[in-house]
């Protein structure tokens, strides 16, 4: 019993020891920026990968020139002309001095617009990042990815069909 406990503790220590370096959360590395003028507010939009590709997640940062301390805001996303999402501007979880979106993926390829409604000491104002081009998704076509990923489901269905045939009421 003692040996088993020691073995389990050793395994846990080894696992956590090896895991420790991987627990460090990656910093937000901005590789591209765009400027947005929202009335009196000068906003810098940062991207952690560029160009942006559909379904590929990245960090977005939204940094007003004189900080976010006394401001509030809302981000509205448009795909073409269609409003897709709106949410309050929140601090980036790994870069708390600016607003942002962490590991966020744009769902579809095409032209996107980010509209920023900002309210601060100089009053409310609106600015837009227009013509954000999101490229085609990387990797295999989604049909192939779904086909690979649903093999367990079809395997289970095949098993059920076999079991069904072998347990027909007439066979009892």
């Amino acid at each position, binding site marked *: 019993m003692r040996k088993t406990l020691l073995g389990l503790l050793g395994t846990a220590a080894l*696992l956590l020891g090896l*895991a420790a370096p*991987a*627990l*460090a*959360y990656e910093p937000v590395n901005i590789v591209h920026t765009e400027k947005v003028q929202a009335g009196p507010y000068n906003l810098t939009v940062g991207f952690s*990968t560029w160009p942006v590709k559909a*379904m*590929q*997640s*990245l960090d977005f940062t939204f940094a007003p020139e004189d900080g976010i301390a006394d401001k509030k805001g809302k981000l509205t996303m448009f795909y073409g002309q269609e409003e897709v999402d709106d*949410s*309050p501007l*929140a*601090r980036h*979880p*790994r870069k*708390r001095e600016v607003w942002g979106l*962490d*590991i966020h*993926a744009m769902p579809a390829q095409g032209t996107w617009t980010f509209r920023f409604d900002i309210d601060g000491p100089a009053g409310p104002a609106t600015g837009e990042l227009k013509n954000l081009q999101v490229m085609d998704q*990387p*990797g295999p076509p*989604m049909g192939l*990815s*779904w086909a*690979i*990923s*649903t*093999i*367990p*489901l079809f*395997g*289970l269905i095949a*098993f*059920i069909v076999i*079991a*069904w045939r*072998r*347990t027909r*009421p007439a*066979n*009892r």
Partner: protein
Amino acid sequence: MDITAVAPSTRTVPKGLVPAGLVLGGTLLSLVGLTWDIQWHSDVGPDTFFTLPHLFLYAGSAVSGLASLVVVLMTTADTKRAKDVDPIVGGRAVGVFGRTFAAPVGYLISGTGAALFLVYGLWDQWWHGLYGFDAVIDSPPHIGLLLSISITMVGAVMVFAVAREQRWGVYGVIAASAALLVFSMVTSLGLRAVPAAFANPVSVGTAFFSVMILFTAAHALNRRGGALAVGVSVAVLQAVFWWFSPWAAKVYADATGLPLRDYADGIPGLPNMIPMCLVFVAVAVELLHRLPVWIPGAVGGAVIAALVPVQRVLVHGGSFPVNARYLTTIVLAAAFGALAAMLGRRFGHMLRHLAPAKENSHA
């Protein structure tokens, strides 16, 4: 020394209970990991391969998989030595890779699910390398992982169904079915990939899996109260996770020095995917047991789909439009609910065939 004198006071664990308990325990670890992970992403955010919720998910499949592997190897060894194999442990043994292995069919399924989890873990790693560490629950590899765990959970239902003549078998079928039902609410999110502008495929899927698993368990146990017991167990899991998920996310965030997101609403993610009306649907299934199964199935499916947006409004606030899409979803859910009830009844009978119980001794 007279060793027989102590024998009567020695309590033995029923044969088959330990490995079945380990498989069920593994699936519950997976379930805890999943609800914690979903909450972590909505309330806190930052992700790595080795977050604690992820470790729960990996450990769950590892425990279930290793328990299944040990049973298969022991059964294989017994078969090679021409020893009798007791089918109370996972059901009748079937040959795998010719006759290289002899695997009780329940453990074959639970172990296959765990092995698939490993394969889909690699597929998921490759995906994250290409698409980034996207916290998208319904990405194709995540659905592959969820389906793999679901297969282990189906195996868990099977290994307990074999022992349904015993009390631990009955309780095990109820607990394993409840775990599978709760887990299927997340797997159903994969249906968002189905292009259906005229109806909500996730609501239909939620209704289908709920009704099917309720009927499967009820008919496997073949006793009054089976569906209600699963419904109540699901409600208990929902209540416990409703408290646990936001609490665990906050405690883990505090422990790792990470702040909660601005505007995090703290609404439990996974528990809120479970229909709160399920226990009433289970009562209806019990009360309508004399009718053809498709009738309570259709009623249950329609009620679940009709109340999905009502639950959303209750929890999140706002409103929902009673439009053609909503009505089409209810009609489709009724049709799929009827089908699910018929399938569930048949699956219940199939589970009874696994068992070495008295009434099937001639099977």
